[in-house]
């Protein structure tokens, strides 16, 4: 007899003025179709929330620190790879610019990361443990050698000392460069943030590819066009992959893809895609001109940056409405496709 109690209905208001009941999907029969004693059905994805309150917490990560960190890591990581291969294939200008990009990016990454901590002076506590279950712990053990190597390489590049060591440092940073760019995807995905977690198989690719677009783009800006061929190719390939995977992120995950289309994050994603596509197109068309290279490189870098902000903010938005938590979970329970158990309630 206690089944299916309706939510507080007419005449009921709450402090924030929002609806106490989330109604999506099929419209409920007026007067409370569930008010008659049958057990609540979950096939229609309506549910009653707790005064419209969010369920998971909104990440306390600050913007722009964290999106910037994601961007810098990607750009620096891809640049370090580019630099190492350019060095091995003897492209000194490309090598130098990429090394500078990697080095500066690495140092700024560390700054951004430390700045985001609630207790920055305790940054070194990150090295207390090594936890494979924590992307941030693993990331610390990636970022630390990377930033040391990339920073040192850029420094000796600038000063012109120890050429041998320089190459070694460049290789070391290149080894960590890829993981640095892609782990940030895991960093976001390995959370309870609905729109991030759902895209856990895509985000590393998005961030890796986007990093290449950015790294390539930045090199294009500073490297003479005749030596920037690899940068252009990497940038265009990265942009293409990014656009393809972002499309999946934005459309493959049902309701939790929604935040990528709505509001500010939606605008950011749209702008990111536009910049990235335009940058890639312009690279193909006019990448060999100095002006074209600068323009397209800037667009690619901007696209990459906007992707990070877009993804970041879409995730933030997905925490603020309980429907992004409840509906996918309800659907999972109803479908019984859940790998672990048919139901959590017994």
């Amino acid at each position, binding site marked *: 007899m206690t089944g299916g109690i309706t939510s507080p209905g007419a005449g009921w208001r709450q402090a924030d003025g929002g609806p106490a009941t989330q109604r999506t999907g099929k419209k409920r029969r007026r007067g409370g179709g569930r008010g008659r004693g049958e057990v609540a059905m979950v096939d229609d994805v309506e549910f009653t929330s707790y005064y419209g309150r969010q369920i998971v917490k909104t990440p306390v990560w600050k913007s722009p620190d964290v999106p910037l960190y994601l961007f810098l890591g990607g750009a620096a990581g891809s640049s370090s790879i580019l630099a190492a291969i350019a060095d091995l294939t003897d492209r000194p200008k490309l090598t130098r610019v990429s090394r500078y990009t990697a080095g500066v990016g690495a140092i700024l990454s560390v700054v951004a990361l430390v700045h985001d901590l609630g207790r920055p002076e305790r940054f070194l506590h990150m*090295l*207390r*443990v*090594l*936890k*494979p*279950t924590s992307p941030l712990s693993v990331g610390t053990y990636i970022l630390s050698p990377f930033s040391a190597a990339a920073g040192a390489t850029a420094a000796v590049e600038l000063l012109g000392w120890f050429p041998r060591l320089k190459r070694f440092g460049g290789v070391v940073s290149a080894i960590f460069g890829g993981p640095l760019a892609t782990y940030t995807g895991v960093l976001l995905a390995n959370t309870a943030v609905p729109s991030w977690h759902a895209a856990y198989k895509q985000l590393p690719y998005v961030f890796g590819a986007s990093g290449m677009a950015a790294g390539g783009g930045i090199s294009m800006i500073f490297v003479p066009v005749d030596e920037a061929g690899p940068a252009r190719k990497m940038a265009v390939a990265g942009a293409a992959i990014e656009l393809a995977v972002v499309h999946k992120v934005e459309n493959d995950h049902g309701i939790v893809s929604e935040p990528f289309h709505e509001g500010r994050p939606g605008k950011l994603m749209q702008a990111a895609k536009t910049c990235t596509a335009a940058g890639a197109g312009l690279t193909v068309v006019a990448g060999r001109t100095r002006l074209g290279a600068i323009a397209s490189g800037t667009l690619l870098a901007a696209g990459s940056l906007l992707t990070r902000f877009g993804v970041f903010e879409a995730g933030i938005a997905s925490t603020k409405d309980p429907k992004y938590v409840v509906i996918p979970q309800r659907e999972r329970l109803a479908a019984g496709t859940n790998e672990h158990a048919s139901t959590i309630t017994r």
Partner: protein
Amino acid sequence: MLGVKTWLDSWPVYRQLTGSDPLGRGKAARSKGTESVVSRTATADRVVKSVCPYCAVGCGQKVYVQDEKITQIEGDPDSPISRGRLCPKGSASKQLVTSPTRVTTVKYRRPFGTDWEDLDLDTAMEMIADRVLEARRKGWQQVDGGKRVNRTMGIASLGGATLDNEENYLMKKLYSAMGAVQIENQARI
């Protein structure tokens, strides 16, 4: 060598690699602070048995004292009435004692005054005694309605029902002896 070993042992990563907690989730991750955690119930100088001052259920309380300060007040599981449980008010009763807004010195407002003034406790007691005698005299009735009443109508009192029995007793005794009859208590309310 020993120094290095000690240093290594204090590094959780080393403990992860050599101990039973490879993922650094539990034993290996314990900090110095955690190893020295101690409950302030365990370090209290004494535990005093008391009774909650709010409603009349009369829940037993255990009052922990350390360095002459109350460090914790919680339910007394020995009480057959409350069985160690407390409501939010009872649970907050430490704040009743330690409240930063609690006023612990005498305050005085003179006639037509616009603000409080400080006053010495002994002076205040003497001043109150003066006023009691004066009010008693002023309001004295030997006879009322033709009957002997030997009382004063110049002094009234209203007590809360968180007064101890002993306090109520002394109040009633003293007031009656001075002839005051308008003596009331929250119990009326």
